[in-house]
């Protein structure tokens, strides 16, 4: 079979339409905007800022999140247990950054899982698109609840030791509007410069 060369990537530019976003797009718990959120897990908020060089906010960036369900399963055939995955949980969401570079996702705390000889710590994959990024940037955010799993995670292990903490979200205070007792996690995404966020490529 002939291999087709993949289409070249470009930037989204500064004009990604706001009309593409609807309320609830940043809620990974819902398979459709109108669908009720999955309750099979701990609802959390994951938020932060996207910063460019010199700590300036990166406005009009688009972020997409993708993660396993609370039991560590993806509803996709790449996961051998995909038929057991939570049918009410999408695991995907999209947000954009405001004038301060801020973004927010609502989701369930993901589960970890075994893969091959490794154990993947609970994580959320983030894809960042913005003017000046000629391809989507990928990174992965981990959680402070699982220090042992994080230490053994094969992807976090690719990151130089001094930079690993940048990919572990911090607990902060939950805003009004989140259910009582819900936890909020914060992660700063520094595209370039001091304390730069580690980014990955496949």
């Amino acid at each position: 079979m002939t291999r087709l060369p993949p289409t070249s990537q470009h930037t989204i530019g500064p004009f990604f339409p706001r009309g593409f976003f609807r309320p609830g797009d940043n809620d990974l718990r819902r398979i459709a905007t109108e669908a009720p959120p999955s309750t099979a897990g701990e609802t959390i908020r994951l938020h932060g800022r996207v910063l460019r060089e010199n700590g300036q906010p990166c406005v009009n960036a688009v972020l997409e999140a993708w993660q396993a369900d609370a039991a560590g399963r993806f509803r996709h055939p790449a996961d051998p247990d995909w038929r057991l995955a939570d049918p009410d949980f999408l695991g995907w969401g999209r947000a954009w950054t405001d004038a301060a570079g801020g973004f927010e996702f609502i989701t369930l705390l993901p589960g970890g899982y075994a893969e091959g000889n490794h154990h993947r710590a609970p994580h959320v994959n983030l894809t960042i698109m913005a003017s000046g990024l000629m391809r989507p940037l990928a990174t992965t955010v981990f959680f402070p609840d699982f220090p042992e799993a994080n230490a053994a995670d094969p992807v976090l292990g690719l990151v130089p030791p001094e930079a690993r903490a940048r990919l572990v979200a911090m607990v902060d205070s939950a805003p009004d509007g989140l259910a009582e007792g819900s936890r909020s996690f914060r992660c700063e995404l520094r595209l370039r410069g001091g304390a730069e966020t580690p980014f990955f490529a496949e």
Partner: protein
Amino acid sequence: MDPQQLPDRIEAWPPGIEPAVPIPGYANTYTHWPAQPLLRRPAGRTERSGPLDLGRKLPCGDDNLAVPGPGRLAMGQLIHIGGRVLDEDGRPVRGAVVELWQANAAGRYRHAADTRDAPLDPDFIGNGRALTDAEGRYGFFTIKPGAYPVPVAETWWRPPHLHFSVLGPASAGRLVTQMYFPGDPLNALDRILMSVPDAAARDRLVARLIPPAEVGPGWLGFAHDLVLRGRSATPALP
């Protein structure tokens, strides 16, 4: 395909396809792109998977940008753009979400960030979304956008182009790209298109004019295929 048999890495990009960055004159490519090299990681199930039925989350079928309502018609050359979304093995990717956004015929976006003094068209919003069918086909009715100057110090003119975003069945194949029109003299002067080193790769970003006799009156037809990185078979929908 048995996921256990998948190689643990996706083949690297063939040379010349990825844009060379930073791009002289495009300041954001200097201030936004990481200074550190990207860490190449094995592609496990978290990178090989993605939402399968995203059409429920992102409603599709909004594929006519030229006709916003009965009796209304956008200004400009009416075109139809269509093609297939394929994987690297040439297999159709069905159920992919294809998003299109573009400037109007005067080269102006309906977006708060576009403050240029060019007219807005009340009958043109400029974005649409479609779902690929079983053969991986997508299609939009729209208008040919105008060229526009980039608001940077060393300005240059973007040739008429369409922005595409494709959400397929795997995160690793997420594609954001732009499509150009054949024969436009601005193509060879565009810093963004010319950042793709390989001439053949640039040519693949240029749509093909379908002979008008094959399309019929009313619309100029263009064909443009989009190839997602990765060769994993399109998974069956649940």
